[in-house]
C-alpha cells in the first residue's frame, strides 16, 4: 500500500474536532543472536501500524491500528467519542505550521538491501573473537538493524515523511580466571551495514581491556576528581540535564518555571549542552518529530547559562516558547511525548592528555553499565581507571558515582577538543512506559573537580 497516497486521501480537517493527526510507521528489522558460539535466533520482521490522535474539548483521545484499510473508520469513531467531551481547550495546534516535507533518503541505501545471510556471516566473524579465549565463559553476540519510514499528516496542513536506518553489533561476555567473574560488553553502531565491517580492532581492544579487570581491586570510596569519557559524559548530560530539559515536566508547576528561567546560570562557563535531531548518522536522527515539527538544533545550556528547552506543540504553547521538534513516540502504538534526540556536551579546547596530567588523585570512567538522573544523578561504572599524579595507573572497580546535578554542572573544569556521539539500537532511553526509544548521547572527555565515588 502506498502510504503517501493513503495520507492524501485521509480527511482530518472536517471531522469537527480542534486538531487531529495520524502517524504511520513502516518498520523492518533483523535480529540475530549467537549464544556461546551457536546461532540461537535469527529473524527478519516487517510491521506497519498507525496512531491517531484527536484533541477536543481540552482532552486528547488516542487509538492505534495495524490494518491501514480501517483508518478512516477509526478516525470517525474516535472523533465521535472526542466530540462528546466538553472542556476548556488550549490552542497549541496553532503553532503547527503547514508544510509538506518528504525526506525519504535511504530507500536504496538501508539495511534491507543486504541479505540476512550476509549479516549472519559478519556476526559469526565477530563472534569468533571470543571463541578461542579460555577466559571467556559466557558470550553472546547480537546483530540488530532497523529501517523505518515515518509518515505524518495533521489537520493544520502538515504532511511529512522521513526514513531512518541503522545497524549494530553487540558483543556481551563474561570472563573468569577462576576468581570473580567480570561481565562486560562492546557495541559497534553504523548508519549503514557496510560500516560495521571495519570494527574488528575496536572489538579486540575492548576484550583485551576487559581482561585487565579480572584482577582489579575495588576503589576506595570518597570524593575525587573524575574524568568522564565521551560515552560517560553523554550519559551524564542525558540523565542529569537532558530529562530536566523536557518541558512537559514543567507543566502546571509555576515554581519550576521560575527555577528554570532562561538565562539562569546553571553550570560552568565552559559548558554547553545541545540537542539536535538532524544528525543523520546518529541513532537519535529525527528531522521531523511525531507532530510534524521540523527538528531544531537546540542549545539547552550555552556557556553555562540556561538557553533552551525541548518542546512539543503543547508545552511550547503553555510556556510561550517555540516548538523545537522534540515530540517523539516509541513507535506507532504510543502517543508522542517530549523526548531527546541526539544530546551532547559541546567540545572544549584541551586534549585528553591535558585532562589526565592535571589530576593528582582521581579516576577515569571509561565505560558504564547505566545511569539515572533524579535530584541526584547516578552512574554505575564498568571500566574505570585510577589516576595518580597525572597518569592512568591501574584498573579499578567502582559500584556507583553520584552527585547533585547543579553542583556537578558547576564543577566541570575542562573539556577535551573532540566530541564523540554514541549511538545504539540495543537499548535506548526510557520515559514513563516508553522504552527503549532510539537516541544518541555523547560529548568530549570531561574533567569534573569532585564527585562521590562508592
Amino acid at each position, binding site marked *: 500500500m502506498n502510504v503517501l497516497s493513503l495520507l492524501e486521501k485521509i480527511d482530518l480537517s472536517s471531522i469537527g474536532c480542534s486538531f487531529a493527526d495520524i502517524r504511520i510507521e513502516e518498520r523492518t528489522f533483523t535480529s540475530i543472536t549467537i549464544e556461546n558460539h551457536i546461532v540461537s535466533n535469527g529473524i527478519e520482521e516487517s510491521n*506497519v501500524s498507525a496512531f491517531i490522535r484527536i484533541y477536543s474539548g481540552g482532552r486528547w*483521545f488516542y487509538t492505534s491500528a495495524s490494518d491501514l484499510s480501517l483508518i478512516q473508520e477509526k478516525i470517525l469513531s474516535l472523533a465521535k467519542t472526542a466530540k462528546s467531551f466538553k472542556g476548556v481547550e488550549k490552542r497549541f495546534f496553532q503553532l503547527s505550521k503547514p508544510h509538506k516535507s518528504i525526506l525519504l533518503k535511504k530507500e536504496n541505501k538501508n539495511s534491507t538491501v543486504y541479505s540476512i545471510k550476509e549479516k549472519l556471516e559478519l556476526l559469526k566473524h565477530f563472534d569468533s573473537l571470543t571463541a578461542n579465549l579460555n577466559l571467556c565463559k559466557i558470550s553472546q553476540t547480537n546483530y540488530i538493524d532497523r529501517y523505518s519510514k515515518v509518515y505524518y499528516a495533521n489537520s493544520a496542513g502538515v504532511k511529512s515523511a522521513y526514513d531512518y536506518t541503522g545497524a549494530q553489533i553487540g558483543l556481551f561476555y563474561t570472563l*573468569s580466571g577462576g576468581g570473580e*567473574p567480570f561481565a562486560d560488553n562492546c557495541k559497534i553502531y553504523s548508519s549503514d551495514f557496510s560500516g560495521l565491517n571495519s570494527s574488528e580492532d575496536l572489538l579486540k581492544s575492548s576484550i583485551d581491556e576487559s581482561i585487565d579487570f579480572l584482577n582489579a581491586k575495588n576503589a576506595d570510596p570518597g570524593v575525587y576528581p573524575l574524568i568522564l569519557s565521551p560515552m560517560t559524559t553523554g550519559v551524564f548530560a542525558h540523565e542529569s540535564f537532558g530529562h530536566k530539559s523536557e518541558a512537559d515536566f514543567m507543566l502546571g508547576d509555576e*515554581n519550576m518555571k521560575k527555577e528554570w528561567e532562561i538565562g539562569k546560570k546553571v553550570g560552568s562557563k565552559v559548558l554547553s549542552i545541545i540537542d539536535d535531531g538532524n544528525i543523520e548518522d546518529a541513532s537519535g536522527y529525527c528531522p521531523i518529530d511525531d507532530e510534524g515539527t521540523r527538528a531544531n538544533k537546540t542549545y539547552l545550556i550555552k556557556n553555562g547559562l540556561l538557553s533552551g528547552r525541548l518542546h512539543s506543540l503543547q508545552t511550547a504553547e503553555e510556556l510561550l516558547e517555540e516548538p523545537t521538534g522534540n515530540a517523539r513516540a516509541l513507535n506507532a502504538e504510543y502517543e508522542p511525548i517530549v523526548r531527546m534526540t541526539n544530546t551532547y556536551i559541546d567540545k572544549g579546547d584541551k586534549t585528553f592528555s591535558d585532562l589526565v596530567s592535571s589530576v593528582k588523585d582521581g579516576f577515569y570512567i571509561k565505560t558504564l553499565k547505566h545511569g539515572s538522573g533524579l535530584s541526584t544523578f547516578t*552512574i554505575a561504572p564498568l571500566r574505570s581507571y585510577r589516576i595518580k599524579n597525572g597518569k592512568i595507573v591501574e584498573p579499578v*572497580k567502582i559500584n556507583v558515582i553520584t552527585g547533585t546535578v547543579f553542583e556537578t554542572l558547576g564543577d566541570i573544569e575542562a573539556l577535551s577538543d573532540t566530541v564523540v556521539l554514541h549511538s545504539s539500537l540495543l537499548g535506548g532511553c526510557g520515559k514513563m512506559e516508553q522504552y527503549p526509544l532510539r537516541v544518541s548521547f555523547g560529548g568530549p572527555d570531561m574533567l569534573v573537580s569532585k564527585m562521590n565515588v*562508592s
Partner: protein
Amino acid sequence: MVKEYYSIKSEQKSINISASQIDSLRNKDVQRGSVRIFNNGKIGISASASGADFAKLEASAIENLKLETVSGYDLPENSVLEREFEHKSYDDSELIGIADRVLNKLRYDHPEFVFSGNVSFESYEKSLKNSAGTDLKLRNGYLDVSIIFKSKKSAGIMDGYFGNLYQGDMDFDEFCSVADDILSNYDNELDIEEGKIDVVFQGFQGTIMYPFFYKHLNGELIEKGASYFSSGRSGFCENFSLYDVNDMSLSPSPFDADGLIRKDPKLSVIDRGRLVAPLFDIRKAVKYGKKPTGTSVRSYNGATHIAPNFLMTNTTDIKLKDFEKALLVIMTSGGDFQDDGSLSMPVQLAYIVENGKIKGKAPQLILHNTIENIFGLDYIGTLNDRMYENDKFGYFASKMILKKG
C-alpha cells in the same frame, strides 16, 4: 517437523495524567504472533507485531530454517492447560471515574504537589499451541493506578511515586491513606545517623537484589563458572529460603515459553541458605544434562532464555510495627552490584519509621552491603504485613549500612 503457534492479544485502555489533570484517553488492541518450526535440530522463526496470520508466518518460518538456528531440544508434547485468573474489567468511563476521584482527593489534600501518572486497564489472552499436542491458554487482566508526585518547591522532575495493581475493586480509601502517609511526611526531613540500620522495602520483587538473583541463578552461568554461585558459594543464613513461583495471578505464566508446565508451582531454589535448584530452560537443561525448571521466557520474536517466573523469599512473623526504628525505602535508582556481590544503592526517597509509623523523611543517602550479608548475617526476610492489603507479598527487610548522600 513440529510447528508451534504463539499469539498474545491484549486490550489496553489508559488514562494519562499530567500537571494534576486528566490529559488523555488511549485505547489500543495489540496482537503479536509467531510461528516456530522445529526440524532436524534446527529452528526457523517468523513473527509479527501487527497481527498473527499464521499461514503467512508458517511459510516464512520454514524458509528461515536455512539460517540453521540450533534448537537442540524437543518441545513439550500434550501439555494442555487453560487458565483464567479472575479479574474485574473496566470501561473508559470507569477508568476516568477512578482518575477523577484520585486526583480530586490528591489535589484537595495535597495542593503543594504536582501529580502525573496513569490509570490503566489491560486484559490479555496468551495462546501457545504446537503440533505435538500442546494447547495452552492464559487469560488475565489488571487495573494499574500509578501516581508520580513532584513537590512544587523542588527543582527535580519527580520526587517519588506510589501505586498499586488490582484484579478486583480498587480500595480507594487504602490507596489514599498510603498516599497521605507518603505526602504528608515529605517536607518533614529528619536527620539520621550513619551506620547499620534496618531497611524495609515494599517487596522483595522491587529491590535491586531481585535482578542480582535473576542473573546469577542462571544455570548456564553457574555451569560455565560465570555466576556468583559458581564456586559453590552460598554463605547465606539458614533463615533464608528463595522460591520460584509460577502460578500466582501476577506472575508471568503457569507455563514457560516452550509450553512446559512445572508440576510444582512453587519451586525451592535456595533452601535454608543453600542453592538447591539453579534455573534452566529446556534448551540449556538438555545441553548440561539437567532437569528443566520451567523458567524460560521469550519475546514474541526471540529465542527462549532462562528467567525466573516470580521469586519470593520465605515469610517471617515480623511486622513493620516490630521495628523500633527502620528506613522505609520508597524510591531507589541507579545502584548496582559488582560481580563479587558488593552493592551501593543510592536512595532518592525513604522515610524513617518507628514502630510502624512514619516519623519523617530521610535525607538523600546511599546504602551499602554485600549480597552475602544481606542474605546472611543481616537478613531479616519478608514481613508478615504489606503496604497494600492486596499485595501478594509483604515488605522485605534486611540490615544495610547507611551513608548520607
